[in-house]
């Protein structure tokens, strides 16, 4: 998965620091501002654009029910990207643009079949989940936190379906942790 770490490097939310004293104290982060909210959403947009590129590549490798799920997920990632771009624009910012497809493909690992893609897509979804869980507490605007949480929950459902396609579908294999952080081993 060497390519994934390179890809993941482009996914970190802009403007997100690590854990800080304010978070540990349970006090709203004093650095939370509308400008930082906008930067966080634009970082999330990078993430969603990467997911769109990944599912676009993956469709050619999939068949049957798995392909139908992936088609649905691609549509949903596009909806996330469009919503985030719209929010950034409404907040007076310039939404980050998707890169050319070849650039994403060059950063992705070598994908030779369904198994490769399912593993890669699970990893990618988990990178997004991890970024969303860390990003939500940093958002100042409660409505934006709601939107991001609704996207996070959709990505978590994607992981469950992807893990199901990679296994015999036992619930223990598809819903692995009571607190979804994106850190569970794919």
């Amino acid at each position, binding site marked *: 998965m060497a390519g994934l770490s390179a890809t993941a490097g482009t996914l970190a939310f802009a403007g997100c620091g690590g854990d800080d*004293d*304010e*978070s*540990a*104290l*349970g*006090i*709203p*982060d*004093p650095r939370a501002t509308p400008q930082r909210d906008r930067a966080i959403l634009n970082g999330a947009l990078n993430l969603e654009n990467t997911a769109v590129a990944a599912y676009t590549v993956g469709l050619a490798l999939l068949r049957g029910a798995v392909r139908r*799920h992936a088609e*649905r*997920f691609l*549509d*949903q990632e596009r*909806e*996330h990207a469009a*919503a985030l771009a719209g929010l950034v624009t409404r907040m007076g910012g310039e939404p980050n643009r998707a890169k050319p497809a070849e650039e994403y493909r060059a950063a992705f690992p070598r994908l030779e079949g369904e198994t490769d893609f399912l593993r890669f897509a699970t990893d990618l979804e988990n990178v997004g*989940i991890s970024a*969303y*869980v*860390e990003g*939500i*507490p*940093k958002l100042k605007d*409660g*409505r934006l*936190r*709601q*939107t991001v*949480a*609704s*996207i*996070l*929950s*959709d*990505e*978590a*459902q*994607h*992981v*469950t*379906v992807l893990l*199901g396609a990679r296994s015999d*579908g*036992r*619930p*223990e294999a*598809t*819903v692995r*942790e*009571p*607190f*979804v*952080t994106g850190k569970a081993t794919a």
Partner: protein
Amino acid sequence: MSTPALTRRALAAALAAGAVPLAAADEARARPMGDREVVLGLLALEQRSVLVYDQLVRSGKLSGSAAAAAELFRGQERRHVDALTQALKGMGATSLPKAPSAQDARGDVGELIRLAAEHEMESIRAYYEAHAKLRSPALLATAASVMANEAQHLAVLRQLLGRDPSPVAFVTGRG
């Protein structure tokens, strides 16, 4: 995950060291009341979640993946109850909601799974609303990770009912 208990201790230590501005400390003391009410509501829901899955497990009507899911999800809901209980204790809550008593599950397998799915929808709605109200970053991170888990439960239950596990791009517990 940092617990509110840790949060309180950390706040006290930081105050002693003069590390936290007084206004921020005042805010931290005043705000947990709002967070506390939100978490109390979530705890009551999680206690019902445990009950819902307990009823499914005890009904003896489930088998295979459905039985395994009910047992797994009951355990995960218990973990949510534990986390929220700890959070409330850390915020100084002394009166916690009592877990509801068990009742016999009625209906066939499909009805029982549908009941669980409806309850998951209600939980997701509550966590979605909580994201607008909670102020503590630690509680927000917990709420986000739990909401995502409830969404996964819902996906599995929908699959058991023969439905699309992930039909919407924005999971809010509505529609």
